[in-house]
């Protein structure tokens, strides 16, 4: 198991109702899951819990056999750098650093030695032209930036990749191309993927499709 959740409950400070109440959920190595749901139902919160940015009120989250809540804040940051890749909707990159330096920065936090060669190879396989490697990331198009973000997320060969609406800033053509590249790369690296989106058109590309509402017993469910 890459990730397993048991009796997870979580609520934000200042609210009474728990936002998440997930009795049981798990993800196998290399699995690709499409997670959908309306906004405000806690998709992003679940990703934050999986990445160790938030801690559960009760229950456990185990990633790669490690209980996240037993780690210190500092250890969780290191853990995240090494084992979890993240791709946002946009603004994934430090705008004034080049794609190569953005990737090297991620590799620096992952505690890896100089990753320039692998970064170049990843960028190449994601269709980024060599001339863009050393330009400030802000000069790249959104589509290019999102592809650089994949390379950045995969540089430390993470076991789990979290993608939060990574295609919502892209047009249709770019979206399909992006998704193909992403699925291809995670398959190639044998990385498990949690792909969060509300765009059900994309779901057909995934072997496993889940609605957060089915997992989550919170929110006065039935």
């Amino acid at each position, binding site marked *: 198991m890459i990730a397993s959740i048991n009796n997870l409950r979580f609520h934000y400070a200042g609210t009474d109702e728990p936002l998440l109440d997930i009795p049981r959920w798990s993800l196998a190595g290399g699995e690709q899951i499409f997670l959908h749901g309306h906004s405000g139902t806690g998709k*992003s919160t679940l*990703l*934050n819990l999986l*990445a160790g*940015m*938030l801690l559960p009120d009760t229950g456990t989250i185990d990633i790669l056999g490690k209980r996240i809540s037993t780690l210190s*804040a*500092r250890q969780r*940051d*290191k853990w*995240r*750098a*090494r084992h979890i890749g*993240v791709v*946002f*909707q*946009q*603004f*994934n*990159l*430090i*705008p*004034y*650093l080049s794609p190569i*330096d953005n990737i*090297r*920065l*991620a590799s*620096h*936090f*992952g505690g890896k030695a100089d990753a320039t060669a692998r970064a170049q190879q990843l960028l190449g396989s994601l269709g980024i032209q060599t001339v863009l490697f050393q330009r400030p990331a802000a000069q790249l198009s959104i589509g290019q930036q999102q592809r650089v973000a994949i390379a*950045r997320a995969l540089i430390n060969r993470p076991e789990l990749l*979290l993608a*939060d609406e990574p295609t919502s800033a892209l047009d249709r053509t770019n979206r399909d191309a992006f998704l193909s590249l992403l699925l291809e790369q995670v398959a190639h690296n044998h990385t498990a993927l949690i792909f969060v989106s509300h765009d059900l058109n994309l779901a057909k590309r995934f072997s496993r499709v889940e609605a957060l509402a089915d997992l989550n017993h919170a929110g006065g469910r039935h």
Partner: protein
Amino acid sequence: MFFRLTLASLWNRRGSAVLTLLAVTVSVFVLLGVEQIRHQARASFGNTVSGIDLIVGARTGDINLLLYSVFRLGNATNNINWQSYREIADDPGVAWTIPISLGDSHRGYRVMGTTGDYFTHFHYGQDRPLQLAKGAPFSDRFDVVLGSEVAHSLGYQLKDKLVLAHGLGSTSFSQHADTPFQVTGILAPTGTPVDQTLHVSLQGIEAMHIGWRDGVKLPGASHRLNENTRQELTPESITAFMVGLTSKLNTFRLQRQINTYRAEPLLAILPGVTLAELWQMTAIMENALRLTSALVLLASLLGLAAMLLASLRERQREVAVLRAIGASPWFLLALIEAEALIITVGGSLLALALLSLCTTLSADGLAAQISLFIESAAITRTAPPYLLAIVAGAMAIALVPGIRIYRSALAQQLTY
């Protein structure tokens, strides 16, 4: 990678970063400049006399006596009788004396009558004797030895003739026109009031005043000086005299003896002590300057904090990205501190370079204009503690934006 990120981040904000750096540069320049001048002025001041145990004059204030005898400022209230002088000079505890006779001037520079002992016994700085750049000490009664600044600014050379004026104004109407003096020596620069003085023999002072009474040339009295009048050339009185003792142990005994001298009211001072007292009077001015420069520095450091604080809004995305890829909140705090450090150190180094350049360029001017001798090497001695304090201050003040970014990083979630 951290350093690279810091530099890239600063470069990304180069407009405000450079302005902030320049503000730091200016304030550090002001602070170190003031300190530099203060130290040098104090050193220069303390170095005006050396190796002189007592200065004796007519009874007046300690500082007044020091001012007119050493700094050629102000006037003596009274003179010392030649007999009194001889009596004290003959005391067994006295090794040597330098009599001083003041009251005349030449184009704004004061004339001092003295003896040849002045050139051997008067010391300044760290026990440095006077040195002649050109020529020799006076030997004839109408010889004059110029201080370096007098010679330089009035353009006198050896063998030039000049006329001394009675009184101290730079445009005196009473000129000792019938007794011109000839330049026989020019002293090397000392950075003391010696540079602004014309030195003649006591006989010269007497000789040019023959036929004068109460500061006025008697009508019809021509200058009738010949060998027969040599007798007259022993002065009746002098303005003050400097004393060197055979043993320092005698200092207080002799001082008390002079201060309680029966024949006329006299005052003996220890030049070192009185110099320190005089310097104390400038302390308020000095502290005001230091306070001002410290406030200028504080303003620039507050500007630095404000610049970093203003940058936090645009950094919000960077915080999200860095947190997502595994940066701890401490990393972001360190990033802000490192940017503050680079700006402060950069500004300080620039200020040091500017200050060295300015002191090098203005050294001659300052020496010539106000006899302030600045060693540019002295910055490297005085600056380090200040620079350390400045950097520590900048680090402390950068904690304001630093702690804020730490908190926002702590609360940061994955999604943006």
